[in-house]
């Protein structure tokens, strides 16, 4: 009898499944990874959309202000002229203009219907102010307006801009938090699945140790399996999630919040990162679980 000579393993030997296939339960890990990634796509869409919304609102509203003038009819023209002259001499204002009657009517039309006799109503005069860069001193402007035109009121929208921007910002944080939680839950799920698989295969591990397998070899067998499973599951989950987002009705011009949920441009690349991230989470979680379990065995 001659002892066999050793040579480097061929691909067939290398791919040999030393850990027995785990049957239907393996699909649970794949399915869960897929479902979680699907949810993750929406959380991602939510945080990206709310980020855009927050930016848009801040941007659009920060640059404009409105001066509302309520005055007796005979004072109207005088005070309007006074306001315009104040604005003309205020630094930091890019442009300003008084809305004419047609525009005022158009603004009111949704509420009062067409054919409104605007001139017969004590409707305040509106003057639109667009802020320059750097902006104007709103406190100083208010004081000057109060002196020149007592009926004028400067509304720079901060009153309702801030809570909206804050809400959108919170929404974004919530989205990011959801992604983190989904990631943590996935790590926990994979750790549990890996521990179950390691426990089921304790005898296999004992045999492998007996014939001289190093921990890294044994861990590799499990890690590869769970990483590939998670990658496959979350790839399907991502595809389904992206299809779902794409199928949402298109955002209208005003960018309503619900219809604005989705990805734009390069944003579509973000969800493609999710399967890789999920696989990385699976890799680390399984590896940790495997080495922990292996240390319990001799």
């Amino acid at each position, binding site marked *: *009898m*001659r*002892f*066999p*000579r*050793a*040579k*480097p*393993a*061929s691909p067939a*030997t*290398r791919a*040999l*499944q*030393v850990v*027995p*296939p785990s049957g239907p339960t393996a699909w649970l890990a794949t399915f869960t990874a897929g479902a979680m990634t699907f949810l993750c796509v929406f959380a991602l869409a939510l945080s990206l959309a709310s980020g855009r919304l927050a930016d848009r609102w801040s941007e659009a509203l920060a640059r404009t202000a409105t001066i509302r003038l309520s005055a007796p009819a005979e004072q109207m023209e005088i005070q309007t002229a006074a306001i315009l002259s104040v604005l003309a001499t205020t630094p930091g204002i890019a442009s300003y203009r008084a809305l004419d009657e047609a525009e005022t009517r158009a603004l009111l039309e949704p509420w009062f219907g067409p054919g409104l006799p605007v001139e017969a109503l004590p409707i305040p005069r509106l003057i639109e102010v667009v802020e320059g860069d750097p902006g104007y001193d709103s406190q100083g402007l208010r004081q000057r307006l109060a002196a020149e035109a007592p009926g004028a009121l400067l509304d720079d929208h901060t009153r309702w801009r801030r809570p909206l921007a804050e809400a959108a910002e919170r929404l974004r944080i919530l989205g990011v938090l959801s992604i983190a939680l989904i990631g943590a839950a996935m790590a926990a799920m994979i750790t549990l699945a890996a521990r179950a698989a390691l426990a089921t295969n304790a*005898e*296999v591990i*004992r*045999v*492998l*140790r*007996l*014939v*001289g*397998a*190093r*921990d*890294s*070899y044994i861990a590799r067998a499990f890690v590869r399996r769970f990483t590939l499973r998670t990658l496959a599951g979350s790839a399907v989950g991502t595809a389904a999630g992206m299809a779902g987002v794409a199928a949402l009705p298109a955002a209208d011009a005003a960018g309503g919040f619900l219809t604005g949920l989705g990805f734009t441009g390069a944003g579509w690349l973000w969800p493609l990162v999710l399967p890789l991230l999920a696989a990385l989470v699976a890799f680390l979680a399984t590896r940790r679980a495997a080495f922990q379990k*292996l*240390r319990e065995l*001799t």
Partner: protein
Amino acid sequence: MIAFENVAYSYGGGDLLSDVTLRLAPGSFHFLTGPSGAGKSTFLKLAYAELLPTAGRVTLFDRDVTTLSRDDVARTRRRIGIVHQDCKFLDHLSVAANMALPFTVSDRESDPQDLDELLAWVGLRHLADALPPQLSGGERQRAALARAVIVDPDVILADEPTGNVDWEMSLRILTLLVELNKMGKTIVVATHDLNLIRQAKAQVQARVLRIAKHRVQLAGADL
């Protein structure tokens, strides 16, 4: 090669083995005998670092086992062929794949012709593609022996290799072990079968270690 110095091993309730001092010289053939539960398997497990001594020093290939890392233990086991009483196969792999497992786990493989020759040596060539559960007790033991020797180890430790087989098969396995010893391998066989030991003494210069009263003693020539 394998040396025990004042080794003791105790489970929770007292010593199973105590004050064991011996040295297994290269090329020696030892039988390890004693009543069931006396500590034969424990002795073997100490010899391949499955268990660590609770007192004293076990040295494998001139290294104290307590200083071995887990990877060192793995590497040491590639120099020790272990034949377990219950064989311990991976039941989802063929007999040939199980035999080649020590190569597989170190990312190597054997020359197919050599593997075939080894299969022929243990008389299992026709069962290469069978799964372990389809084998009889004797076939399993021979496959386990083939797996133990495939990496050309220096030492072969066999725990009751003839425990589940008939006399004829016992002799066949003994013959294989004797052949390995003649190739220079150090052999330790734990058995309670005194007939097997007598049979072996006719073929090879074997020494008998007897476990009694927690001690391992060299038995006399007479059995």
